[in-house]
């Protein structure tokens, strides 16, 4: 009897031993990791999508934050910026003039300019990190994320595609041809694809998303900081306009696409140029989230956003009382040379921008101030901080002028083009354009872009796009046709791109000239 009981307990033990059902065993083995977040416990809510997008924007901004990026890529290379005598770190800042001579290899390699770390611009890895991140997000959204409604899903996909296309567009402007892919978890090494084809693919990718994106969001904090329909339109216009320069055969179709996108944007009346044109109103534009913002990297000291001291374009063009402490900021580091200032803001023309946006505009020394970005000064006393502006990428005025440019290029739409350009001039309280159409109008629109968008990182790309870079009338650092064709306008690509990629070729202009 005693034995029997013993046997019974043993049998129960045996049951435990062998009776572990597959379900029970599986449950035992499932351990949700508490020490790390993996792909299977992420993308589970709207918040996850939001935080993932925040990560992506911040990654992209890291690239802009690496050095004086906006200035180096969009402004300095045309050669009108000079370093003010007596600027602090004068020797290192001379790199800006080196950039102005398009001597990028010296700017990158010389130890004298190490402080600027211009080399970072040549490394595209982080842009591809952004692309991979949104590609993964798109695939997750398409699979379905719990808690994300159908309308949110549509909007998030459109936003993600905007980021993807914007990144490719940005890279095309820097490097020319780039590898293009849209699949999630892409591992295959591939060579560079012709940039026109890349942008065409981007246009095709983004075009359908335009109408799925609302003009505005209910949360005003998102305006401009996150892309809405206006941002998509601006990007599409830019991509089309870029291709007009490099795909001559289809020039007309790019132009008409830009024109119709532009009119859609203007006719929607969702955006407006901030008026009246005064300091107070202008400050809201540079701060960001304004009616005029289409897309910007919104930055705020209130959010503890990290902006490197060197990163803002305006850092180089401000002095006391726009910068503190007074003792060390008697001079601006740099100035735009007076001949250029007189070229774009002729004294004969009434233009409120000349007064509102500058101080000592033709001084050719450190007294020069680009007040355009000096309206959100929060520092005082010994605080050494730049004004709290956002990094504006696409602004309504930019889109209007692009629209005007496309119309003027089309040849038979000069009247509309003049109307558009005068919208921008009217806000600036400048004399309206009354000249003829054709070449004069085109030149005027180009100059208007220089005037309106100074310091916003458009000028050098406009020079390339319009091929004016090959004409000494428009730039102090012209390229010959041969240099242009060999890619003298591009940036060198970091050697590391060659690693593990047999199909990779670097920009030939820089590998041949540099060596």
């Amino acid at each position, binding site marked *: 009897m005693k034995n029997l009981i013993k046997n019974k307990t043993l049998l129960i033990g*045996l049951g435990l031993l062998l009776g572990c059902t597959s379900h029970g065993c599986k449950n*035992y083995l499932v351990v949700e*990791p508490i020490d790390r*977040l*993996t792909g299977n416990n992420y993308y589970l809510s709207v918040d996850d999508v939001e935080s993932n997008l925040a990560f992506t*924007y911040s990654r992209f901004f890291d690239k802009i934050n690496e050095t004086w990026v906006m200035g180096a890529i969009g402004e300095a290379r045309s050669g009108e910026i000079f370093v003010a005598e007596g600027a602090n770190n004068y020797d290192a800042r001379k790199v800006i003039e080196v950039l102005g001579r398009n001597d990028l290899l010296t700017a990158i390699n010389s130890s004298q300019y190490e402080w600027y770390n211009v080399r970072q611009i040549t490394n595209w*890895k982080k842009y591809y990190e952004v692309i*991979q991140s949104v590609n993964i997000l798109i695939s997750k959204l398409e699979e379905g994320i719990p808690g994300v409604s159908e309308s949110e899903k549509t909007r998030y996909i459109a936003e993600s595609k905007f980021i993807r296309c914007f990144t490719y567009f940005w890279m095309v402007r820097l490097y020319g041809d780039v590898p293009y892919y849209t699949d999630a978890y892409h591992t295959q090494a591939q060579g560079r694809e012709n940039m026109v084809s890349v942008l065409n693919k981007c246009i095709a990718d983004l075009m359908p998303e335009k109408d799925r994106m609302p003009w505005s969001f209910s949360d005003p904090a998102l305006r401009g900081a996150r892309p809405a329909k206006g941002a998509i339109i601006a990007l599409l216009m830019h991509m089309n306009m870029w291709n007009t320069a490099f795909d001559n055969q289809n020039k007309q179709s790019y132009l008409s696409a830009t024109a119709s996108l532009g009119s859609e944007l203007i006719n929607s009346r969702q955006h407006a140029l901030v008026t009246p044109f005064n300091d107070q109103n202008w400050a809201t534009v540079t701060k960001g989230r304004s009616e005029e913002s289409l897309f910007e990297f919104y930055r705020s000291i209130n959010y503890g956003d990290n902006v490197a001291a060197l990163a803002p374009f305006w850092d180089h063009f401000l002095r006391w009382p726009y910068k503190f402490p007074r003792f060390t900021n008697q001079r601006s580091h740099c100035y735009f040379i007076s001949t250029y200032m007189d070229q774009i803001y002729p004294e004969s023309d009434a233009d409120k921008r000349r007064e509102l946006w500058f101080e000592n505009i033709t001084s050719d020394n450190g007294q020069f101030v680009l007040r355009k970005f000096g309206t959100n000064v929060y520092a005082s006393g010994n605080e050494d901080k730049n004004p709290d502006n956002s990094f504006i990428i696409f602004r309504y005025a930019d889109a209007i002028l692009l629209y005007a440019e496309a119309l003027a290029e089309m040849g038979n739409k000069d009247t509309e083009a003049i109307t558009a350009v005068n919208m921008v001039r009217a806000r600036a309280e400048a004399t309206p354009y009354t000249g003829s159409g054709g070449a004069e109008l085109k030149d005027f629109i180009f100059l208007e872009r220089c005037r309106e968008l100074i310091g916003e990182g458009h000028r050098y790309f406009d020079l390339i796009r319009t091929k004016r870079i090959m004409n000494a009338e428009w730039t102090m650092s012209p390229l010959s046709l041969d240099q242009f064709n060999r890619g003298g306008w591009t940036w060198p690509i970091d050697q590391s791109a060659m690693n593990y990629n047999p199909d990779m070729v670097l920009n030939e202009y820089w590998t041949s000239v540099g060596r």
Partner: protein
Amino acid sequence: MAQNQQITGKVVDETNRGVGGVTIQNATNKRAMTATSEDGTFSLSVAPNTVLIFKGVGFNQRRITVRANQSTINIQLSTSEDQVEEVVVRGYVARKKETTTGSSFTLGEKDLRDVPVANLEQLMQGKVPGLNVQVNTGAPGFRGSTQIRGLSTLSTSGSGNESILMPTSPLYVIDGVPMDADRASEFGLQQQGPGISPLSLIPPEDVQSIEILKDAQATSLYGSQGAYGVIIITTKRGNSEVPRINYTHSTFIKTPPKLRETIGGNLERQIKLWQVLQNARTQEEIDKIMSNPALSDSLNAYYNNSTDWQSLFYQNTFNQNHNLSLDGGNQVLSYKSNLGYYGETGVIRNTGFNRYSANLRMDYRPTPRFDFTGQVFAQLGKQNKGDGTGILQTGVSTGGMNSTLLPAPGFYTANSEYLSAIKTKNDNSSKLIRPFVEAGFEIIDGLRLRSALSYEFASNNEDRFTPAAAAGQFSQVYSFAGRESQLYNRNILNYSKTINEDHSLFFNLFNEVRHVTRQNTITLQARTPNDQFEGPLGFDGYFSRGGGVLSNFRNEKALSFAFATSYNYKSRYVVDLSYRLDGSSANGFENLYTKNPAVGVRWNIHHENWIESLPWINLASLRFTWGVNVMPTSTLERVYGRYDISGNYNQVNGIGINYEFIPNPDLKPTTSMQYNAGLDLNLLNGKLDIIYDTYYKQVDNLLFDAMLSNMAGFEKLYSNDAAVANYGHEMAINIRPLPSSNALSWTLSINGAYNKDVLLQLPSHYRGQFIRWDGSQDLLHMVNRVGTSSLSNYLLQNVGVYATDADVPVDPVTGLRYRTADGTYFQAGDPIYIDRNGDYILDNRDYARSGNTQPLVTGGLQNSFQYKNFQFSVYASYTAKRTILNYALAQRLDLLKDPFGNRAVVPVNGLDVWLQEGDVAKYPYPYDYSRNASIKPFRYDQTLWEEDGSYFKINNIIVAYVFDRDFLRRFKLERFRIYGSMDNVVTFSKYSGPNPENVTNLGRDQSNGYPVPRSYTLGFNISF
């Protein structure tokens, strides 16, 4: 026919314990007459002049002729070295080795005694064919590297000279509980925490036997964890009617190896001055002498010394080892306790290791059907690492290179490296406690159920206080706290049945449940007030340099099921089949289980009837096995990607993917498939014992860090597309040439293993070759090329030194001489590198694959004499066919690169160095300091440092004497044995560096590593 006479007697072992179960055979008709009872006694009736054979499992057989009128026979059996007659453990069940098919090797108590070591593995070196143990660090309490049958991974960790191959240690099973010996190896040589190897906590005196399982049949029952081989350690248990007290003591002296030769005092200054005057290129450089008081002001007391820096760091040490064990009991109840202390002060000052252990065991077996075991291991390891990480002693290594002109550290002068090495207070400890209970019950005849449960808890701590002078004028406190636990449960159901005495069947079904956790945290508080105040500091945002939970956090649950069956016919033909399912929570959510099948067959030829005609064959067996071990490689992270909190935008915190590796949902488990064929022979009545094994092991779906192009955004892809094969031969020969009746017994054992690894496959887009570029300044690139040995160096091919300027090649196109990438031209005295791409520029394209980092041949030799009460043994081991990079020499010569610096000067005589125009030399000119930075004549990434790392090492020499029993009785002693031994006696090698074994597992001589000391021991064992 003569009248039978009645004989009684007792069979005892070498320690005079009765041996039960010894069969006594009549030699003429080979018929078993009787067997001894549990206490070793027997009685039988036999005719005079009959020859009796005494045979016991684990003992050498003995023959005794019965004399007329003899009535008692008391004999002593010697322990057998014979590997076949033993009982082995397979899948946690004891089996007779004869009826198992796998390849394994057993070490007994005798192989492990007389040499006090911190780490058990050191004692296994050279004793097991195919087990490659390299004692590559002398750091007390740390372990070297251990590999069974070659390379199983291509993963490395760390960079430059410090990169190591990720350890693939065998699974250790200690008294039935698996243990991970590679704990905390995630961080390579830059270990975090105390780094005490769990193996260092086991006192070798408490080990009864160690069995090394090598092939997949033997290991497959241990599943994924056993993929790199299994080592089973069995500790001693109570086994004596009368309680016995056993005390082992040894005293040992450790001495550092020979140190680097340095030129001291004024001669150093003279050489430096000569070097400047000889090689200066501008007046400015010569004038620099004037601004360098060490060179110009020989009367300055501060610079007028001859300090032997190295001797400040190294020392001879005096150490002790004590072990006390108490055991007793009978068949029903037995007990054992073992208390141990081992203390070792490191040969580098301010380092050392102490072990305290207490192991208790109790076995209770009230009826043959029921048994119960309770066991507790409690171990404490305390360690002092100085200011290094244990294996690396960078501070000491840099400090030892100081100029002799500088004053020795004293009251007025300080030297930060010295202070850091000596004054850093370091208190590290590993505490481990493991209770274990096991019970077995025989439900019906042959059907047994066993269940075991153990819970291991380990706590690891490191507290380090660095005084201000050693840490940039601010003292700091570092603290590491770690805890690990393993809950382990195993249930076994087995059934054995013999049908008609011919067919034996055995079934074994078991499951294992494991739950492993680990959490390590670190805090660092810097800029603490002063050296007098070491804490407690509390939290302070200003002082805190952060910290947190280390990334090797672990919470893993594992569940396994295994089934094994074995059939044999008259013990002649044996078939083994086994299958194991291994599940782990670390595998992700899909495919939780990996499957490990194995098959083995064995033919015991010696049981065939026809073998009787060949009486010189005592034993002959053929074995053939096949098995697969599958190791999961997919983790949640690898499959789904890891997401980190990073960045913020527009007031939203960002969370995004980590770009270190791209998720790979198609990751397959690594499959290690192995064939093994073996032959066991015992010839000439045990005089010759041969074990031979040959194997082919193919590791498929090997995890490979496929580096990605930067246009993919991610750094790497964990891919599965690599494969490696290892094949080789292993042989162990045991010779006892003298007859057992001879007073002198001589045992000679030789073993050797040849293992070759070949890379079979790489991810296809690499087109057969992958270059692992090293990001560190050492530029130690590696290359994996399909069809060659898996891990090779990628080096510049050095072919000598330019004897004259005219020897430097000139580019016929440009007229420029061969030059470096920064445009410095080569000249006489500079190294000659093969310009592989022919562009007359020294750059990345001039590298070539070179050497083999893994040894091809390893093995050992044991030679033991016993004459009456004397024992003399020599143990040796060897490693051959391996490339070592001699960075000790590179660093030594590089000391001469800056005469203005504060480094010592070393003599170069004895080395084939270029000194003047026309010299045909091996080593480049070391004194040309102004061009040194461009030419880098002693750069690490060149074949100049490649040397043959073969060595033959005499591990130990042991002399022992056992006192006569009758003499001891007078003192009421059971046994008294004294011995003297030497460890790490001498290494014979062509290698020109200090020690060909003291290198990383990638074959790099780490000049900042911990040297392996030599030790001299005197000791005794005493039993009451």
